[in-house]
Protein backbone atom coordinates (compact mmCIF):
# COMPACT_ATOMS: atom_id res chain seq x y z
CA UNK A 1 0.00 0.00 0.00
CA UNK A 2 2.80 2.36 0.87
CA UNK A 3 4.53 1.37 -2.37
CA UNK A 4 1.46 2.33 -4.39
CA UNK A 5 1.34 5.66 -2.63
CA UNK A 6 4.95 6.42 -3.48
CA UNK A 7 4.42 5.54 -7.15
CA UNK A 8 1.36 7.73 -7.39
CA UNK A 9 3.10 10.73 -5.85
CA UNK A 10 4.89 12.22 -8.93
CA UNK A 11 1.74 12.30 -11.12
CA UNK A 12 -0.17 13.95 -8.31
CA UNK A 13 2.45 16.67 -7.93
CA UNK A 14 2.42 17.21 -11.69
CA UNK A 15 -1.30 17.88 -11.90
CA UNK A 16 -1.16 20.15 -8.90
CA UNK A 17 1.30 22.37 -10.76
CA UNK A 18 -1.03 22.50 -13.79
CA UNK A 19 -4.01 23.20 -11.59
CA UNK A 20 -2.32 26.16 -9.97
CA UNK A 21 -1.23 27.61 -13.31
CA UNK A 22 -4.72 27.50 -14.82
CA UNK A 23 -6.49 28.85 -11.78
CA UNK A 24 -8.12 25.45 -11.05
CA UNK A 25 -11.34 24.85 -9.12
CA UNK A 26 -10.52 26.02 -5.60
CA UNK A 27 -9.02 29.30 -4.47
CA UNK A 28 -5.56 27.76 -4.06
CA UNK A 29 -5.84 25.44 -7.04
CA UNK A 30 -6.61 21.71 -6.87
CA UNK A 31 -4.21 19.04 -5.75
CA UNK A 32 -5.54 15.53 -6.21
CA UNK A 33 -2.60 14.04 -4.31
CA UNK A 34 -3.67 15.99 -1.22
CA UNK A 35 -6.84 13.93 -0.87
CA UNK A 36 -4.86 10.73 -1.18
CA UNK A 37 -2.36 11.90 1.46
CA UNK A 38 -5.24 12.60 3.82
CA UNK A 39 -6.58 9.09 3.18
CA UNK A 40 -3.20 7.58 4.09
CA UNK A 41 -3.15 9.77 7.18
CA UNK A 42 -6.55 8.48 8.26
CA UNK A 43 -5.56 4.87 7.55
CA UNK A 44 -2.44 5.33 9.67
CA UNK A 45 -4.43 6.79 12.58
CA UNK A 46 -6.87 3.90 12.25
CA UNK A 47 -4.06 1.33 12.50
CA UNK A 48 -2.58 3.08 15.53
CA UNK A 49 -6.00 3.13 17.17
CA UNK A 50 -6.44 -0.60 16.54
CA UNK A 51 -3.02 -1.25 18.13
CA UNK A 52 -4.13 0.70 21.19
CA UNK A 53 -7.43 -1.17 21.33
CA UNK A 54 -5.75 -4.58 21.15
CA UNK A 55 -4.12 -4.34 24.57
CA UNK A 56 -7.11 -2.73 26.26
CA UNK A 57 -9.60 -5.23 24.82
CA UNK A 58 -7.39 -8.19 25.73
CA UNK A 59 -7.14 -6.95 29.32
CA UNK A 60 -10.88 -6.34 29.51
CA UNK A 61 -11.60 -9.85 28.17
CA UNK A 62 -9.19 -11.37 30.68
CA UNK A 63 -10.81 -9.50 33.56
CA UNK A 64 -14.31 -10.39 32.35
CA UNK A 65 -13.35 -14.06 32.03
CA UNK A 66 -11.75 -14.19 35.49
CA UNK A 67 -14.75 -12.45 37.06
CA UNK A 68 -17.16 -14.80 35.24
CA UNK A 69 -15.25 -17.95 36.25
CA UNK A 70 -14.91 -16.91 39.86
CA UNK A 71 -18.47 -15.63 40.25
CA UNK A 72 -19.92 -17.03 43.46
CA UNK A 73 -16.59 -18.47 44.64
CA UNK A 74 -14.92 -15.31 45.89
CA UNK A 75 -16.29 -14.13 49.24
CA UNK A 76 -15.03 -13.17 52.68
CA UNK A 77 -14.68 -16.85 53.65
CA UNK A 78 -12.35 -17.38 50.68
CA UNK A 79 -10.12 -14.52 51.86
CA UNK A 80 -9.92 -15.67 55.47
CA UNK A 81 -9.50 -19.46 55.28
CA UNK A 82 -6.63 -21.79 54.41
CA UNK A 83 -6.84 -23.85 51.21
CA UNK A 84 -8.21 -27.35 51.02
CA UNK A 85 -7.98 -30.26 48.57
CA UNK A 86 -11.70 -30.94 48.92
CA UNK A 87 -13.71 -28.75 46.61
CA UNK A 88 -16.79 -29.01 48.81
CA UNK A 89 -14.99 -27.08 51.52
CA UNK A 90 -14.91 -24.02 49.25
CA UNK A 91 -18.69 -23.70 48.84
CA UNK A 92 -20.17 -24.72 52.13
CA UNK A 93 -18.75 -26.76 54.92
CA UNK A 94 -15.91 -25.46 57.02
CA UNK A 95 -14.66 -22.89 54.51
CA UNK A 96 -11.46 -22.79 52.48
CA UNK A 97 -9.52 -20.18 50.55
CA UNK A 98 -6.40 -18.18 49.87
CA UNK A 99 -5.62 -16.67 53.29
CA UNK A 100 -2.10 -18.09 53.98
CA UNK A 101 -0.96 -17.37 50.40
CA UNK A 102 -2.37 -13.83 50.53
CA UNK A 103 -0.54 -13.07 53.77
CA UNK A 104 2.58 -14.83 52.42
CA UNK A 105 2.53 -12.62 49.32
CA UNK A 106 2.13 -9.48 51.43
CA UNK A 107 5.07 -10.48 53.67
CA UNK A 108 7.12 -11.31 50.61
CA UNK A 109 6.37 -8.01 48.90
CA UNK A 110 6.97 -5.87 52.00
CA UNK A 111 10.37 -7.52 52.54
CA UNK A 112 11.21 -7.17 48.86
CA UNK A 113 10.20 -3.49 49.03
CA UNK A 114 12.54 -2.84 51.95
CA UNK A 115 15.51 -4.50 50.22
CA UNK A 116 14.72 -2.91 46.86
CA UNK A 117 14.38 0.61 48.22
CA UNK A 118 17.71 0.48 50.05
CA UNK A 119 19.70 -1.23 47.32
CA UNK A 120 17.99 0.34 44.30
CA UNK A 121 17.90 3.92 45.55
CA UNK A 122 21.41 3.61 46.95
CA UNK A 123 22.78 2.42 43.62
CA UNK A 124 20.88 5.11 41.71
CA UNK A 125 22.14 7.90 43.97
CA UNK A 126 25.68 6.65 43.63
CA UNK A 127 25.52 6.41 39.85
CA UNK A 128 23.81 9.78 39.32
CA UNK A 129 25.26 11.99 42.04
CA UNK A 130 28.66 10.56 42.94
CA UNK A 131 30.14 8.35 40.21
CA UNK A 132 32.18 10.33 37.72
CA UNK A 133 31.41 9.86 34.04
CA UNK A 134 33.89 7.10 33.22
CA UNK A 135 34.09 3.97 31.15
CA UNK A 136 33.51 1.84 34.26
CA UNK A 137 30.32 3.76 35.13
CA UNK A 138 29.02 3.43 31.59
CA UNK A 139 29.81 -0.30 31.67
CA UNK A 140 27.89 -0.73 34.93
CA UNK A 141 24.92 1.25 33.61
CA UNK A 142 24.78 -0.75 30.38
CA UNK A 143 24.84 -3.98 32.39
CA UNK A 144 22.06 -2.85 34.69
CA UNK A 145 19.93 -2.13 31.62
CA UNK A 146 20.76 -5.60 30.28
CA UNK A 147 19.92 -7.30 33.59
CA UNK A 148 16.42 -5.82 33.40
CA UNK A 149 15.79 -8.07 30.39
CA UNK A 150 17.01 -11.34 31.95
CA UNK A 151 14.11 -13.87 32.25
CA UNK A 152 12.78 -14.36 35.75
CA UNK A 153 13.45 -18.10 35.73
CA UNK A 154 17.17 -17.32 35.51
CA UNK A 155 16.89 -15.16 38.61
CA UNK A 156 15.17 -18.14 40.22
CA UNK A 157 18.21 -20.31 39.45
CA UNK A 158 20.50 -17.61 40.81
CA UNK A 159 18.41 -17.34 44.00
CA UNK A 160 18.52 -21.12 44.38
CA UNK A 161 22.29 -21.26 44.02
CA UNK A 162 23.07 -18.13 46.02
CA UNK A 163 20.54 -17.87 48.86
CA UNK A 164 19.02 -21.34 49.22
CA UNK A 165 22.23 -23.35 48.73
CA UNK A 166 25.39 -21.23 49.16
CA UNK A 167 24.05 -19.08 51.99
CA UNK A 168 22.28 -22.15 53.39
CA UNK A 169 19.00 -20.35 54.02
CA UNK A 170 16.83 -23.08 52.54
CA UNK A 171 13.49 -22.43 50.82
CA UNK A 172 12.42 -19.73 53.23
CA UNK A 173 10.72 -16.32 53.06
CA UNK A 174 14.02 -14.42 53.23
CA UNK A 175 15.44 -16.35 50.26
CA UNK A 176 12.26 -15.63 48.29
CA UNK A 177 12.36 -11.92 49.06
CA UNK A 178 16.05 -11.64 48.18
CA UNK A 179 15.49 -13.47 44.88
CA UNK A 180 12.61 -11.17 43.94
CA UNK A 181 14.79 -8.20 44.95
CA UNK A 182 17.46 -9.32 42.49
CA UNK A 183 14.78 -9.65 39.84
CA UNK A 184 13.38 -6.12 40.13
CA UNK A 185 16.52 -4.30 41.23
CA UNK A 186 17.62 -3.33 37.69
CA UNK A 187 14.21 -1.82 36.85
CA UNK A 188 14.15 0.06 40.14
CA UNK A 189 17.66 1.44 39.65
CA UNK A 190 16.86 2.69 36.16
CA UNK A 191 13.59 4.30 37.32
CA UNK A 192 15.29 5.93 40.32
CA UNK A 193 18.15 7.19 38.13
CA UNK A 194 15.64 8.85 35.82
CA UNK A 195 13.85 10.47 38.75
CA UNK A 196 17.14 11.79 40.16
CA UNK A 197 18.27 13.03 36.76
CA UNK A 198 15.01 14.97 36.42
CA UNK A 199 15.85 17.16 39.45
CA UNK A 200 16.96 20.47 37.90
CA UNK A 201 20.61 21.41 38.41
CA UNK A 202 19.51 24.91 39.44
CA UNK A 203 18.15 23.31 42.62
CA UNK A 204 21.48 21.71 43.41
CA UNK A 205 23.31 24.99 42.72
CA UNK A 206 20.96 26.85 45.04
CA UNK A 207 21.88 24.54 47.91
CA UNK A 208 25.61 24.56 47.14
CA UNK A 209 25.41 28.35 46.96
CA UNK A 210 24.45 28.69 50.63
CA UNK A 211 27.22 26.34 51.72
CA UNK A 212 25.60 22.91 51.76
CA UNK A 213 27.81 19.83 51.47
CA UNK A 214 27.23 17.22 48.78
CA UNK A 215 25.50 14.96 51.30
CA UNK A 216 23.19 17.82 52.37
CA UNK A 217 22.38 18.66 48.77
CA UNK A 218 21.48 15.02 48.11
CA UNK A 219 19.46 14.65 51.31
CA UNK A 220 17.63 17.99 51.32
CA UNK A 221 17.22 18.82 47.65
CA UNK A 222 17.73 15.86 45.31
CA UNK A 223 15.96 13.09 47.23
CA UNK A 224 12.82 15.03 48.24
CA UNK A 225 12.27 16.07 44.62
CA UNK A 226 13.01 12.59 43.30
CA UNK A 227 10.97 10.59 45.82
CA UNK A 228 7.66 10.59 43.87
CA UNK A 229 9.41 9.29 40.76
CA UNK A 230 11.39 6.75 42.77
CA UNK A 231 8.28 5.50 44.59
CA UNK A 232 6.39 5.15 41.31
CA UNK A 233 9.21 3.02 39.90
CA UNK A 234 9.48 0.92 43.07
CA UNK A 235 5.74 0.22 43.25
CA UNK A 236 5.45 -0.67 39.57
CA UNK A 237 8.35 -3.11 39.82
CA UNK A 238 6.93 -4.59 43.05
CA UNK A 239 3.66 -5.12 41.20
CA UNK A 240 5.64 -7.16 38.73
CA UNK A 241 7.33 -9.11 41.53
CA UNK A 242 4.10 -10.02 43.34
CA UNK A 243 2.83 -11.94 40.31
CA UNK A 244 6.10 -13.80 39.62
CA UNK A 245 5.83 -17.59 39.82
CA UNK A 246 8.90 -18.96 38.04
CA UNK A 247 11.57 -17.73 40.51
CA UNK A 248 9.50 -19.00 43.45
CA UNK A 249 9.18 -22.43 41.85
CA UNK A 250 12.95 -22.48 41.26
CA UNK A 251 13.81 -21.72 44.87
CA UNK A 252 11.25 -24.27 46.07
CA UNK A 253 8.55 -22.16 47.69
CA UNK A 254 5.59 -24.11 49.07
CA UNK A 255 2.71 -24.66 46.64
CA UNK A 256 0.14 -24.79 49.42
CA UNK A 257 0.61 -23.44 52.91
CA UNK A 258 -2.10 -24.17 55.42
CA UNK A 259 -1.10 -21.51 57.91
CA UNK A 260 0.08 -17.95 57.20
CA UNK A 261 3.63 -16.90 58.15
CA UNK A 262 3.89 -15.81 61.77
CA UNK A 263 4.22 -12.15 62.57
CA UNK A 264 7.70 -12.54 64.06
CA UNK A 265 11.30 -12.36 62.84
CA UNK A 266 11.48 -16.16 62.82
CA UNK A 267 9.08 -16.16 59.86
CA UNK A 268 12.03 -14.99 57.75
CA UNK A 269 13.59 -18.41 58.12
CA UNK A 270 10.47 -20.50 57.67
CA UNK A 271 8.84 -21.91 54.52
CA UNK A 272 6.34 -19.63 52.85
CA UNK A 273 3.62 -19.67 50.23
CA UNK A 274 2.53 -17.00 47.80
CA UNK A 275 -0.57 -16.37 45.72
CA UNK A 276 0.88 -17.29 42.30
CA UNK A 277 2.07 -20.62 43.71
CA UNK A 278 -1.32 -21.36 45.23
CA UNK A 279 -3.14 -20.46 42.01
CA UNK A 280 -0.78 -22.72 40.07
CA UNK A 281 -1.48 -25.54 42.52
CA UNK A 282 -5.26 -25.12 42.25
CA UNK A 283 -5.14 -24.97 38.46
CA UNK A 284 -3.31 -28.30 38.34
CA UNK A 285 -6.01 -30.15 40.32
CA UNK A 286 -8.18 -32.56 38.24
CA UNK A 287 -11.61 -31.55 39.59
CA UNK A 288 -13.31 -28.92 37.41
CA UNK A 289 -14.36 -26.83 40.42
CA UNK A 290 -10.70 -25.98 41.06
CA UNK A 291 -10.69 -23.98 37.82
CA UNK A 292 -13.22 -21.64 39.41
CA UNK A 293 -11.22 -21.59 42.62
CA UNK A 294 -8.06 -20.73 40.67
CA UNK A 295 -10.00 -17.94 38.96
CA UNK A 296 -11.09 -16.60 42.34
CA UNK A 297 -7.44 -16.66 43.44
CA UNK A 298 -6.41 -14.86 40.25
CA UNK A 299 -8.99 -12.18 40.92
CA UNK A 300 -7.51 -11.57 44.38
CA UNK A 301 -4.01 -11.36 42.87
CA UNK A 302 -5.18 -9.02 40.11
CA UNK A 303 -6.95 -6.80 42.63
CA UNK A 304 -3.80 -6.46 44.75
CA UNK A 305 -1.85 -5.67 41.58
CA UNK A 306 -4.30 -3.05 40.36
CA UNK A 307 -4.37 -1.41 43.79
CA UNK A 308 -0.56 -1.19 43.72
CA UNK A 309 -0.59 0.35 40.24
CA UNK A 310 -3.31 2.80 41.26
CA UNK A 311 -1.20 3.83 44.26
CA UNK A 312 1.75 4.46 41.96
CA UNK A 313 -0.37 6.63 39.66
CA UNK A 314 -1.81 8.49 42.64
CA UNK A 315 1.65 9.23 44.05
CA UNK A 316 2.86 10.42 40.66
CA UNK A 317 -0.06 12.80 40.19
CA UNK A 318 -0.18 13.96 43.78
CA UNK A 319 3.45 15.03 44.05
CA UNK A 320 4.36 15.82 40.47
CA UNK A 321 3.51 19.52 40.66
CA UNK A 322 5.51 20.46 43.74
Amino acid at each position, binding site marked *: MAGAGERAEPTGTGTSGDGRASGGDGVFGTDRSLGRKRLYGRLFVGLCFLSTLFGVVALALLLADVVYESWGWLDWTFLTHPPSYFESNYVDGRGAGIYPALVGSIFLIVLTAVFTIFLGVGAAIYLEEYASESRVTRFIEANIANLAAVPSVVYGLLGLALFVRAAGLGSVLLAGALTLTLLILPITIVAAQEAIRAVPDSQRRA*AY*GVGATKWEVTRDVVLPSAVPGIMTGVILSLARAIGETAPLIMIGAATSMFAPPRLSPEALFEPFGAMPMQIFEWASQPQSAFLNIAAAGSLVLLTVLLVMNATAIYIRNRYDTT
Partner: protein
Amino acid sequence: MSLENTTTDVGSFASQTAVETAVDDAETIVEARDLDVYYGETQALDGISMGIPERKVTALIGPSGCGKSTFLRSINRMNDLIDGARVDGEVRLRGKNVYDDDVDPVALRRAVGMVFQEPNPFPKSIYDNVAYGLRVQGKDDDLDAQVEDALRRAALWEEVSDQLDSSGLDLSGGQQQRLCIARAIAPDPEVLLMDEPTSALDPVAAAQIEDLMADLAETFTVVIVTHNMQQAARISDKTAVFLTGGELVEFDDTGKIFGNPENQRVEDYITGKFG
Protein backbone atom coordinates in the same frame (compact mmCIF):
# COMPACT_ATOMS: atom_id res chain seq x y z
CA MET B 1 28.13 62.24 15.77
CA SER B 2 25.05 60.39 16.98
CA LEU B 3 27.27 57.75 18.57
CA GLU B 4 29.12 60.36 20.60
CA ASN B 5 25.80 61.68 21.84
CA THR B 6 24.82 58.24 23.05
CA THR B 7 28.06 57.93 24.95
CA THR B 8 27.55 61.21 26.72
CA ASP B 9 23.96 60.29 27.60
CA VAL B 10 24.89 57.04 29.24
CA GLY B 11 27.81 58.69 30.98
CA SER B 12 25.84 61.56 32.41
CA PHE B 13 23.16 59.11 33.51
CA ALA B 14 25.68 57.10 35.40
CA SER B 15 27.29 60.15 36.98
CA GLN B 16 23.97 61.23 38.46
CA THR B 17 23.56 58.06 40.45
CA ALA B 18 26.58 56.05 41.26
CA VAL B 19 29.77 57.96 40.89
CA GLU B 20 29.39 60.30 43.82
CA THR B 21 30.47 57.62 46.27
CA ALA B 22 34.18 57.69 46.76
CA VAL B 23 35.22 54.28 45.55
CA ASP B 24 38.91 54.71 46.23
CA ASP B 25 38.41 54.81 49.98
CA ALA B 26 37.09 51.24 50.06
CA GLU B 27 39.33 48.31 50.94
CA THR B 28 39.82 45.56 48.41
CA ILE B 29 38.09 42.41 49.66
CA VAL B 30 38.35 40.11 46.63
CA GLU B 31 41.42 40.16 44.48
CA ALA B 32 42.07 38.08 41.37
CA ARG B 33 45.68 37.55 40.27
CA ASP B 34 46.49 36.20 36.81
CA LEU B 35 43.38 34.09 36.86
CA ASP B 36 42.94 31.62 33.98
CA VAL B 37 39.97 29.26 33.78
CA TYR B 38 39.67 26.45 31.25
CA TYR B 39 36.72 24.24 30.36
CA GLY B 40 38.45 21.22 28.90
CA GLU B 41 40.54 22.63 26.05
CA THR B 42 38.68 25.94 25.87
CA GLN B 43 40.11 28.90 27.75
CA ALA B 44 37.27 30.88 29.31
CA LEU B 45 39.30 33.44 31.28
CA ASP B 46 42.68 34.84 30.28
CA GLY B 47 44.90 36.36 32.93
CA ILE B 48 42.34 38.30 34.95
CA SER B 49 43.73 40.59 37.65
CA MET B 50 41.37 42.92 39.47
CA GLY B 51 40.48 44.06 42.97
CA ILE B 52 36.87 44.25 44.10
CA PRO B 53 36.17 46.96 46.71
CA GLU B 54 34.42 46.12 49.95
CA ARG B 55 30.77 47.17 50.40
CA LYS B 56 30.41 48.50 46.89
CA VAL B 57 28.52 47.26 43.88
CA THR B 58 30.89 46.00 41.19
CA ALA B 59 29.32 45.22 37.83
CA LEU B 60 30.79 42.78 35.31
CA ILE B 61 29.61 43.48 31.79
CA GLY B 62 30.45 42.18 28.35
CA PRO B 63 29.01 40.27 25.43
CA SER B 64 27.81 36.65 25.71
CA GLY B 65 30.61 34.15 26.19
CA CYS B 66 33.11 36.76 27.41
CA GLY B 67 33.72 34.91 30.68
CA LYS B 68 32.01 37.31 33.10
CA SER B 69 29.87 34.56 34.65
CA THR B 70 32.89 32.26 34.77
CA PHE B 71 34.78 34.92 36.72
CA LEU B 72 31.86 35.28 39.13
CA ARG B 73 31.71 31.52 39.72
CA SER B 74 35.45 31.34 40.28
CA ILE B 75 35.08 33.59 43.34
CA ASN B 76 32.99 31.03 45.31
CA ARG B 77 34.39 28.00 43.45
CA MET B 78 31.09 27.05 41.86
CA ASN B 79 33.23 26.17 38.84
CA ASP B 80 34.39 23.16 40.85
CA LEU B 81 30.98 21.63 40.14
CA ILE B 82 31.49 21.77 36.38
CA ASP B 83 33.17 18.69 34.88
CA GLY B 84 36.43 19.57 33.20
CA ALA B 85 36.79 23.06 34.67
CA ARG B 86 40.39 23.96 35.64
CA VAL B 87 41.72 27.07 37.35
CA ASP B 88 45.20 28.65 37.29
CA GLY B 89 46.17 31.72 39.26
CA GLU B 90 44.68 33.08 42.46
CA VAL B 91 41.50 34.57 43.82
CA ARG B 92 42.17 36.13 47.21
CA LEU B 93 39.39 36.73 49.68
CA ARG B 94 40.72 39.01 52.44
CA GLY B 95 44.22 38.01 51.36
CA LYS B 96 43.63 34.23 51.46
CA ASN B 97 43.80 32.38 48.15
CA VAL B 98 40.53 30.46 47.90
CA TYR B 99 42.24 27.85 45.69
CA ASP B 100 44.72 26.88 48.40
CA ASP B 101 44.59 23.23 49.40
CA ASP B 102 43.44 24.01 52.92
CA VAL B 103 40.34 25.90 51.74
CA ASP B 104 37.09 23.93 51.89
CA PRO B 105 34.83 25.15 49.07
CA VAL B 106 31.78 24.55 51.29
CA ALA B 107 33.21 26.89 53.95
CA LEU B 108 34.10 29.41 51.23
CA ARG B 109 30.51 29.43 49.94
CA ARG B 110 29.31 30.26 53.42
CA ALA B 111 31.28 33.50 53.20
CA VAL B 112 30.36 34.18 49.58
CA GLY B 113 26.63 33.91 48.84
CA MET B 114 25.17 33.64 45.38
CA VAL B 115 21.99 34.55 43.49
CA PHE B 116 21.39 32.94 40.12
CA GLN B 117 19.93 33.98 36.80
CA GLU B 118 16.76 31.90 37.07
CA PRO B 119 14.93 32.29 40.38
CA ASN B 120 15.46 28.86 41.97
CA PRO B 121 13.61 28.63 45.26
CA PHE B 122 13.34 25.14 46.75
CA PRO B 123 9.92 23.46 46.57
CA LYS B 124 9.58 24.21 50.28
CA SER B 125 7.80 26.89 52.29
CA ILE B 126 8.98 30.51 52.12
CA TYR B 127 10.22 30.16 55.70
CA ASP B 128 12.18 26.98 55.00
CA ASN B 129 13.73 28.51 51.89
CA VAL B 130 15.19 31.40 53.86
CA ALA B 131 16.10 29.16 56.81
CA TYR B 132 17.90 26.57 54.68
CA GLY B 133 21.29 28.27 54.61
CA LEU B 134 21.07 29.09 58.32
CA ARG B 135 20.28 25.46 59.11
CA VAL B 136 23.07 23.90 57.07
CA GLN B 137 25.50 26.42 58.53
CA GLY B 138 24.34 25.70 62.09
CA LYS B 139 23.32 29.32 62.67
CA ASP B 140 19.83 28.33 63.75
CA ASP B 141 19.43 30.18 67.06
CA ASP B 142 16.41 32.43 66.98
CA LEU B 143 15.58 31.32 63.47
CA ASP B 144 12.31 33.27 63.26
CA ALA B 145 14.05 36.60 63.82
CA GLN B 146 16.81 35.83 61.34
CA VAL B 147 14.30 34.76 58.67
CA GLU B 148 12.27 37.95 59.21
CA ASP B 149 15.40 40.09 59.06
CA ALA B 150 16.57 38.50 55.81
CA LEU B 151 13.13 38.90 54.23
CA ARG B 152 13.04 42.56 55.31
CA ARG B 153 16.47 43.24 53.85
CA ALA B 154 15.33 41.59 50.61
CA ALA B 155 12.26 43.90 50.62
CA LEU B 156 9.93 40.93 50.64
CA TRP B 157 8.68 40.83 54.24
CA GLU B 158 5.67 43.10 53.71
CA GLU B 159 4.41 40.90 50.88
CA VAL B 160 4.86 37.48 52.48
CA SER B 161 4.74 37.96 56.26
CA ASP B 162 1.29 36.35 56.48
CA GLN B 163 2.07 33.37 54.21
CA LEU B 164 5.46 32.11 55.40
CA ASP B 165 4.17 28.52 55.32
CA SER B 166 3.07 28.59 51.68
CA SER B 167 5.37 27.28 48.97
CA GLY B 168 8.10 29.52 47.61
CA LEU B 169 7.05 28.35 44.15
CA ASP B 170 3.66 30.07 44.53
CA LEU B 171 5.31 33.51 44.43
CA SER B 172 5.69 35.60 41.27
CA GLY B 173 9.01 35.54 39.42
CA GLY B 174 10.21 38.80 40.98
CA GLN B 175 9.18 37.71 44.46
CA GLN B 176 10.92 34.36 43.94
CA GLN B 177 14.14 36.17 43.04
CA ARG B 178 13.89 38.37 46.15
CA LEU B 179 13.26 35.17 48.14
CA CYS B 180 16.48 33.78 46.67
CA ILE B 181 18.26 36.99 47.70
CA ALA B 182 16.85 36.59 51.22
CA ARG B 183 18.06 32.98 51.26
CA ALA B 184 21.54 34.06 50.15
CA ILE B 185 21.92 36.93 52.66
CA ALA B 186 20.30 35.21 55.65
CA PRO B 187 23.54 33.52 56.81
CA ASP B 188 25.30 36.90 56.53
CA PRO B 189 27.96 36.28 53.89
CA GLU B 190 30.68 38.86 53.27
CA VAL B 191 30.30 38.89 49.51
CA LEU B 192 27.12 38.48 47.47
CA LEU B 193 27.51 37.26 43.89
CA MET B 194 24.63 37.88 41.51
CA ASP B 195 24.63 36.22 38.11
CA GLU B 196 22.29 38.24 35.86
CA PRO B 197 19.66 38.31 38.62
CA THR B 198 17.09 40.34 36.67
CA SER B 199 17.40 38.92 33.17
CA ALA B 200 14.53 36.45 33.65
CA LEU B 201 12.23 39.10 35.18
CA ASP B 202 9.82 41.69 33.82
CA PRO B 203 10.94 45.36 33.99
CA VAL B 204 8.96 46.21 37.13
CA ALA B 205 10.31 43.22 39.06
CA ALA B 206 13.81 44.00 37.75
CA ALA B 207 13.52 47.61 38.98
CA GLN B 208 12.58 46.36 42.48
CA ILE B 209 15.72 44.23 42.58
CA GLU B 210 17.82 47.16 41.34
CA ASP B 211 16.40 49.35 44.11
CA LEU B 212 17.62 46.74 46.59
CA MET B 213 21.21 46.89 45.42
CA ALA B 214 22.21 50.14 47.08
CA ASP B 215 20.79 48.92 50.41
CA LEU B 216 22.53 45.56 50.09
CA ALA B 217 25.85 47.28 49.39
CA GLU B 218 25.69 48.93 52.81
CA THR B 219 26.20 45.52 54.40
CA PHE B 220 27.66 43.30 51.69
CA THR B 221 30.14 43.48 48.88
CA VAL B 222 27.99 42.97 45.79
CA VAL B 223 29.39 41.61 42.52
CA ILE B 224 26.81 41.50 39.76
CA VAL B 225 27.02 40.11 36.25
CA THR B 226 24.68 41.86 33.85
CA HIS B 227 24.26 42.12 30.12
CA ASN B 228 22.19 45.25 30.59
CA MET B 229 24.53 48.24 30.36
CA GLN B 230 21.97 50.73 31.62
CA GLN B 231 21.57 48.55 34.67
CA ALA B 232 25.32 48.50 35.29
CA ALA B 233 25.42 52.30 34.89
CA ARG B 234 22.52 52.79 37.29
CA ILE B 235 23.49 50.52 40.13
CA SER B 236 27.24 49.97 40.22
CA ASP B 237 30.16 51.85 41.70
CA LYS B 238 32.76 50.06 39.61
CA THR B 239 32.45 48.34 36.28
CA ALA B 240 34.61 45.68 34.70
CA VAL B 241 34.28 45.18 30.95
CA PHE B 242 35.09 41.69 29.67
CA LEU B 243 35.35 41.15 25.94
CA THR B 244 35.36 37.98 23.88
CA GLY B 245 38.26 35.68 24.65
CA GLY B 246 37.91 35.93 28.41
CA GLU B 247 39.91 39.14 28.68
CA LEU B 248 39.34 41.90 31.17
CA VAL B 249 39.67 44.98 28.95
CA GLU B 250 38.92 47.80 31.34
CA PHE B 251 38.07 48.10 35.02
CA ASP B 252 37.34 51.46 36.56
CA ASP B 253 34.77 53.64 38.27
CA THR B 254 31.42 53.19 36.57
CA GLY B 255 31.21 56.88 35.67
CA LYS B 256 34.61 56.70 33.97
CA ILE B 257 33.73 53.55 32.01
CA PHE B 258 30.48 54.95 30.69
CA GLY B 259 31.66 58.56 30.37
CA ASN B 260 35.19 58.37 29.09
CA PRO B 261 36.56 54.87 28.63
CA GLU B 262 40.28 54.52 27.93
CA ASN B 263 39.91 51.62 25.55
CA GLN B 264 38.45 52.03 22.07
CA ARG B 265 36.89 48.53 22.13
CA VAL B 266 35.14 49.33 25.40
CA GLU B 267 33.77 52.52 23.91
CA ASP B 268 32.58 50.60 20.87
CA TYR B 269 30.91 48.03 23.09
CA ILE B 270 29.08 50.42 25.39
CA THR B 271 27.95 52.62 22.53
CA GLY B 272 26.42 49.57 20.89
CA LYS B 273 28.78 49.13 17.92
CA PHE B 274 28.88 45.44 18.78
CA GLY B 275 27.71 43.04 21.43
